């Protein structure tokens, strides 16, 4: 089990690290809400795909 937790903690730590790095871009509310309208093609593509990507489910639907 400790392997699972170590991996998860590393992964979660990396996500927090990315956020700390991104903090330098956040100066206005537009930076926060729409990334200062500065996302390039790779990030736009990834974040659009990711919006559909995850795992929610509805109890009455498959």
């Amino acid at each position: 089990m400790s392997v699972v937790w170590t991996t998860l903690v590393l992964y979660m730590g990396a996500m927090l690290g990315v956020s700390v790095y991104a903090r330098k871009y956040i100066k206005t509310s537009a930076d926060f809400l729409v990334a200062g309208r500065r996302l390039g093609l790779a990030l736009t593509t990834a974040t659009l795909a990711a919006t559909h990507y995850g795992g929610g489910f509805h109890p009455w639907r498959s």
Partner: protein
Amino acid sequence: MVVAFILGGASWGATYGLGGIWYGFACGLGLLLLGITLAKPMRALALYTVPDVLEMRYKSKAIRLLAATLSLLALVGILGAQVWAASAVFEAIGLPGTAGAVFATLIFIAYTAFSGLWAVALTDFIQIILGSIGVLVAVMLGLSKVGGFEGLKVSLSSIPNLPQASGEYFNFMSLGVSLFALTLAATVMYTLIGQDFYQRLFASKDEKTARMGAIYSGLLLMALSFLPALAGMLALALSSDPQAIIDSPKTAVPKLVITVFGSGVGAIFVAAILAAVMSTADSLLSAATSHVVKDFYQSFIEPEAEDKKLLKLSIVTTIIIGILALVAALTIQGIVELLIYSYDIYTSGVFVPLILGIYWKRATKEGALLGMIAGSLAAVVGITGIVSFSYWEYIYVSGALVSAVVMVLVSLLTSAEPVDREFEKAFELS
């Protein structure tokens, strides 16, 4: 999106076999169509939210308020469902679900509150790569373990109580024509009006990037759509307890991962699946925040608010909504289920007023408002079961039809105001 790409597609794979690819395909098709049609002109408006666009077109605060309320409720509900999904992932690998879900949720709230959409976009980029490689490798190793497609066929045929005949697992149309068509329609409809998608288009650096980003992400999801379906089938075939997956197909992917790799290497792939869940959860959270800050606070409470205040409010709102969704998901399940219905109401009510507003000059604000209300009520009628539908997705289509009829009639009976020049210009260019 309610049943999203990876876990949703796998759940369909365990139920419908290769027919399950249409779930992920629909997600991709929605984005592709968004890219071809609305992405570019919408980005040209350089607004923040879909209700923002509606107000610009119809010059009506009431329309903006109604649309923002429905969308916000839906986003919070679906966010609660992501908390359940995270919990299911932890439980599937034999860890305490609630503790795991709290842990994962606090992390994505923290990184979203700290750096907003920048953090969301950057983590999405990592998460989607991690999630795709994880599932791809799991499927490849799973296929080699089961003995390729022939082995998969043989294994499936030996499982009792399958939801459909084992031969049907290799039939792409096993889900039937009506469910196929309705799934495509419902998913495409939501993708064309969902705030979670438009916020990202508004965040792209220019119109061309918005258009190409939507097209590429659509093609990417369409190309990958066979992966979750195969993962669902393999999970069934390789499991020592297939009945558990038949009863709860959403656990298919995490179970496959642990069966194929054992709990050591499997941990890396469980992180990959959590990455997929969190990449959607952070999108919902940031979209909900945009409604509160732009459609409620700045639009109704303090239009002249200083930017520093709006930034602070965005951060605080992100934390509050995240915690609310977490608490609701863990304690009052019924509330989250109710909130998720607002997703059906939003899609049924807002689709026609937005699309007709763009393509029909004669659309009036009275028509749009009554059309939105009529479509929403039609959805409520379907949801409460006053009229019962054989498939849930009928609700969107019938809601949209009712809303279209009402909107066209009322618009023709009322007089249209001139459309904002900037709005007109943006959509002429497309």
